[in-house]
């Protein structure tokens, strides 16, 4: 058992640290969840990509450095420790890209990935529907065969940053006669500015237009934008959620940096006599370390060829609850100022409130843990 970094990993860390020290904006960018902030974050992605830091684990031909997961974890530690901006490309990079690596064609990868790496094209996720949240397989938006492609109709909703994004990816019902709800679904990519697409922004809990619903009325999608085989959408999407819940969605670096900032806040604002609050700060430090080590073990297992599997559900429940607890502690440390809606902690808090909901609610994850890891029987949901 070994927790030391290789010489290459350490050199990579030093190179990343140096570049970030010189390039991370001195002032935080405006909120990613607003039009101005979105544009500023897109420009930052271009700057990252120009130095090939935006997608280090991708092959070089798409703008990456071809490094392994261990290097990516190192980069993430440095990235978040440097106080660098949030990632506007995250939906595409963490969800669509792994899907294309596993199920896309060489042509699709060559066409989609380079502009994703630079932030030139920002992708939104179009999975949920008003009547299909946790029960995603009950979705009703349709893909109907037409000459040279498909016509999409229906409604998608709660799509993060779709108000500002360029393109979207989602699952549509292509065979209404399939014998099971999760059969007869097809995975497609489409343009948010195509004829027939109406995007209506929805204010998030803090009022920022970070959410959107999409109304689709016979939106044409060429065959070239179908991922995998028609009818295989469910299987392909589920392989994506493994990525979404797993390692790629939240790196430990993010939480190590947040825990450090929390300790700083506690030292500045904490009442030394308040041992209850002190214990919660300690738990944030412990949790960040636990997540870092858990991830190190998972990465080592993946490197031996093991599949992430249901372990990613453990991962997802842990970080989402951890993130929320950390931000609640921060707001408590801020005292009366904890109520103020501006500032990094407030923004982080609102974002963390969504953690237990997206990427499969934590209740769904607990079912998966109980059934697949503990072998408990399926029951009524």
């Amino acid at each position: 058992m070994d927790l030391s970094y290789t010489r290459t990993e350490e050199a990579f860390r030093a190179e990343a640290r140096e570049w970030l020290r010189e390039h991370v904006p001195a002032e935080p960018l405006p909120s990613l969840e607003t039009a101005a902030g979105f544009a500023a974050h897109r420009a930052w992605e271009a700057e990252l990509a120009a130095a090939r830091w935006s997608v280090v684990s991708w092959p070089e031909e798409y703008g990456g450095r071809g490094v392994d997961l261990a290097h990516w974890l190192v980069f993430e530690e440095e990235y978040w420790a440097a106080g660098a901006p949030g990632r506007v490309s995250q939906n595409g990079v963490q969800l669509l890209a792994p899907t294309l690596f596993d199920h896309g064609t060489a042509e699709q990868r060559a066409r989609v990935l380079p502009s994703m790496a630079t932030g030139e094209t920002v992708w939104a996720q179009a999975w949920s529907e008003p009547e299909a949240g946790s029960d995603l397989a009950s979705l009703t938006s349709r893909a109907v065969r037409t000459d040279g492609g498909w016509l999409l109709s229906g409604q998608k909703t709660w799509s993060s940053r779709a108000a500002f994004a360029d393109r979207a990816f989602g699952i549509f019902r292509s065979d209404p006669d399939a014998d099971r709800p999760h059969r007869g679904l097809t995975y497609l990519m489409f343009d948010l500015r195509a004829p027939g697409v109406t995007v209506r922004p929805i204010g998030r809990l803090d009022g920022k237009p970070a959410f959107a619903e999409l109304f689709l009325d016979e939106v044409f999608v060429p065959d070239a934008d179908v991922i995998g085989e028609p009818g295989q959408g469910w299987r392909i999407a589920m392989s994506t959620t493994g990525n979404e819940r797993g390692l790629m969605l939240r790196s430990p670096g993010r939480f190590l940096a947040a825990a450090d900032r929390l300790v700083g806040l506690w030292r500045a604002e904490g009442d030394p006599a308040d041992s209850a609050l002190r214990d919660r700060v300690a738990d944030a430090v412990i949790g960040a370390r636990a997540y870092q080590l858990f991830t190190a073990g998972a990465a080592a297992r993946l490197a031996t060829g093991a599949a992430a599997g249901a372990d990613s559900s453990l991962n997802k429940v842990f970080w989402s609850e951890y993130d929320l607890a950390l931000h609640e502690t921060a707001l408590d440390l801020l005292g009366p100022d904890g109520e103020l809606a501006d500032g990094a902690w407030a923004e982080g808090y609102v974002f963390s409130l969504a953690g237990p909901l997206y990427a499969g609610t934590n209740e769904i994850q607990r079912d998966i843990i109980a059934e697949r890891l503990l072998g408990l029987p399926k029951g009524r949901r």
Partner: protein
Amino acid sequence: MGFLPTDEQRAFARSLDAMLTASDTPAAIRAWAGGEPGPGRALWGRLAEAGVFALAVPEAYEGMGPLPVELAHAFVELGRHAVPGPVVETVATAVLLGELARLGEPGPAKRLLPGLAAGEWTATLAAPATRAARHPVPYALDADRADAVLVVRGEELWRAPGHGPVRVSADPARRLARPAPGGELLAEGPAVAAAAAAARRWAMLATAAQSLGVGLALLDRSVAYARQRTQFGAPIGSFQAVKHRLADTLLALEFARPLLFGAAVALADGRAPDGDLAAAKVTAGEAGYGAARTALQVHGAVGYTEELDLSLWLRKARPLRDAWGAPAACRAAVLAPYA
């Protein structure tokens, strides 16, 4: 970076598991609690034979150590099988004497370590659980069964002449007594304080590992029970409330595990990672205790009886959570570097 057990470590844990499974530990635990230490002593001999105590004894004194990662693997199995007796305290004693020797006081190590590694005799140790503990000399575990009762008082190491009355713990297999005052002064000076700190680190590691093992055993039994116990015409394990509680229990244990082995690796690297050990101790301790609460809830009233072997694990979880560093002290230690 390869944060995975080696094949040898896995095989070692498996062989201990097999040996303990064949040893009928529940009978030994009940006998130990009931004033019949024979089967527990026999078990002790088999653990020594398997090299468990030698892991904490330096090679110069006929041991194989210090090997904290292997020791953590071993103590997860000891927890999984709820092995009774002062196993943690014997390891802590071995580290204390070995460290004293390294710091230029080899006398006690020469005299005592080879027998300790071979399992010829057992030791218990009373030392403050933290540097700033409110109870400078706590209880010594199983003082009436150990061959030597060692006591750390400030910068003095004593071999006590005996012990006070034996008190019953919440876990009947743990027997608590205060060491008697006086006895033989084995060593004194700053080296004693330094060696005691090292002993404390290993005691925290071994106790955290036991907590994890106890929690894993409780979870296994609870899952098995929830699959076969039916109510309302269905296995209770198909009910979401039960499933989610068991899922949370697994989650807590699986996130304690990397902290435990991360701390062990840091110890193996020759560091003194007090914060890492404290983090592992509180997390594994709380996870083990949480598993006990879940196990009791899932089993219902039958879990509230002594009749099930489950009780042997249920009652161990909380004392282990608090021994060698209770949660509040551990959390304070985690933040100490930042204060």
